[in-house]
């Protein structure tokens, strides 16, 4: 009870956000979605205001706010939209926002690679499959959601727990292992390299890490990709000519 | 009648040579052709409003209603042209001829021809027993409204007044006697609608044969 009294603002913000998302869930009666969106965004901003203020440059903070807001907004819209094509498009926007966040963390190559793989290939494939599979337009299973209330409560309990853990951790926790060697140093199958500073040369450092520390994992990943390709070709249904 | 198997020639698909199968010579040859037209640039375009096309003599343009020697309309409102018209674009309102026109019973009180509906087939010209309706060489008649393109009797007669002295549009027919336009053997030889220069490459026939390949093997299949 004491904890609840101390943290009632955060709990209220969580409840607000959860209520907004629950309001937007597809159900039989259509409710104005704007109300839910506003509720969810107000809750999200209240939650954000509870997080420790950043000490970075102003421009970076502005960029972060833009990317984070668009990521969460698009994610909410994605999981609540009744049209799967729109869901896929909102997901593409989430991907772009997340890539912006990557860019802010000096993961430039990763941002570009994520755009290529996710937005360029995966979401296009999804849109493709939706166009092919769901030809009759709106369906009843897109208009209803399964257990929206219970699922929302569970999910936002999880979010609250995660944020509470984040908040209770001190800043020292994040810097404990900063000077340690990479975990791969203890790995038999890899060759540890020197630790390059993260914001110096992304390409070089990432290449060292991938093809030095994790060389065998990279080989394995390539093998997994190959197997997945063969599997996808094998599983994909064969149709008789002229049908979809 | 079924096709006689004697007349059928079976042709085998020519064997694809190695260099043909790579398509590289064909691409090179195509690029050479297009580049050749760029470097050796001889346009055949006719600059229309300044240069007018020389039309063949049998060109069929806008209609006119001919007048006879006394300046009266030649038409006798027999409705043959309206009946023959496949586009159904002629409407005639007949009236008894005035008493001082002894040579006919009827004359057209109104003669309306919808130039937008007309397909310029010239059947009205053929059908007319008194050679009253003729097609002129006017091909660029336009207007801003559809209503203005429906020609009544006065407009059609005006077309006659404008074109009768034009050398390409003589009064081709005379009453009771076919004019030069009807005498097909006297017509000038047919030419294309636009003039073609003597060394125009576009008008030449294609060179026969396939690129770099022997002539296709031909074999006759007996039934």
């Amino acid at each position: 009870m004491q904890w609840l009294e101390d943290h009632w603002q955060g709990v209220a913000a969580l409840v607000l956000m959860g209520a907004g998302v629950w309001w937007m869930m597809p159900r039989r009666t259509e409710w104005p979605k704007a109300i839910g969106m506003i509720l969810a965004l107000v809750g999200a901003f209240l939650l954000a205001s509870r997080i420790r203020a950043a000490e970075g440059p102003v421009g970076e903070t502005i960029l972060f706010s833009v990317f984070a807001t668009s990521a969460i907004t698009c994610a909410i819209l994605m999981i609540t939209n009744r049209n799967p094509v729109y869901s896929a498009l909102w997901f593409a926007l989430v991907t772009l926002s997340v890539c912006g966040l990557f860019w802010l963390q000096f993961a430039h190559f990763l941002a570009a690679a994520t755009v290529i793989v996710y937005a360029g290939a995966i979401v296009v494939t999804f849109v493709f499959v939706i166009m092919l599979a769901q030809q009759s337009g709106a369906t009843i299973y897109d208009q209803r959601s399964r257990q929206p209330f219970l699922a929302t409560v569970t999910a936002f309990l999880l979010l609250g727990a995660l944020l509470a853990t984040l908040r209770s951790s001190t800043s020292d926790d994040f810097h404990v292992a900063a000077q340690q060697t990479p975990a791969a140093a203890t790995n038999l199958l890899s060759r540890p390299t020197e630790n390059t500073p993260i914001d110096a040369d992304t390409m070089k450092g990432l290449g060292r890490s991938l093809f030095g520390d994790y060389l065998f994992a990279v080989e394995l990943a390539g093998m997994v990709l190959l197997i997945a390709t063969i599997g996808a070709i094998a599983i994909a249904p064969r149709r008789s000519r002229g049908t979809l | 009648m079924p096709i006689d198997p004697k007349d059928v020639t079976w042709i085998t698909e020519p064997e694809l040579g190695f260099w043909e199968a790579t398509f590289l010579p064909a691409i090179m040859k195509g690029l050479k052709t297009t580049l050749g037209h760029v470097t050796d640039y001889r346009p055949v375009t006719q600059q229309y409003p300044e240069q007018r096309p020389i039309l063949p003599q049998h060109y069929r343009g806008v209609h006119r209603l001919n007048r006879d020697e006394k300046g009266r309309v030649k038409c006798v409102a027999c409705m043959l042209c309206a009946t023959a018209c496949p586009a159904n674009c002629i409407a005639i309102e007949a009236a008894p001829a005035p008493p001082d026109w002894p040579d006919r019973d009827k004359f057209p009180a109104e003669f309306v021809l919808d130039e937008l509906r007309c397909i310029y087939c010239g059947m009205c010209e053929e059908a007319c027993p008194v050679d009253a309706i003729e097609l002129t060489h006017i091909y660029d008649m336009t207007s801003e409204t559809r209503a203005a393109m429906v020609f009544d009797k006065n407009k059609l007669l005006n077309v006659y007044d404008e074109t009768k002295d034009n050398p390409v549009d003589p009064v081709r027919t005379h009453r009771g006697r076919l004019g030069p336009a009807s005498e097909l053997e006297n017509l000038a030889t047919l030419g294309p609608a636009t003039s073609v220069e003597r060394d125009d490459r576009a008008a030449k026939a294609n060179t026969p044969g396939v690129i770099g390949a022997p002539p296709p093997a031909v074999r006759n299949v007996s039934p």
Partner: protein
Amino acid sequence: MTGDIERFLAVGAALFVLGALGFFTRRNLIVMVLSAELMLHGVSLTLVTFGRVHNSFEGQAFTIFILTVAACEAGLGLSLVLALYQKSKTLDIDFWTELREPDLPSPRVQEEAAQRAYVEASPAQYPRLTPAGRVPDLAHERDPRLVDSARSQTAESPLQPPLVKEVIKSVSH
């Protein structure tokens, strides 16, 4: 620096939770796979942030592995979804409930369980594509007056010459 870390982690957590929520509630197979990818985004963001905390490239390297796995997942998952779709002609996850406990009720909502018309009756159809937006209103094409007037012009009186006044009237309108 620390607040900087926290806010990225918070966004990662929110993305993960929203993806999980979508996975729980949505019933369209494709949207469920998409929600799983959303969870992967949250995890990737967290990994990159941790990598930055530890001043190493391991987080980014792991995220690249996640990218690989996501690509495999998309390919395999979508081909599985297509295979299921070929069998049931629906993308509803609740259609595939053979493995549930026999004494439990069907997860599908009652009103839908009654009207089970998922498998279409006619097998051979021309391919149709997903309509976007609203269905075009074709009512004017079925307007009987238009059809009748067109027929009266072409079929019933094909060779009647038009009257002068009618020609002028029809054009001047």
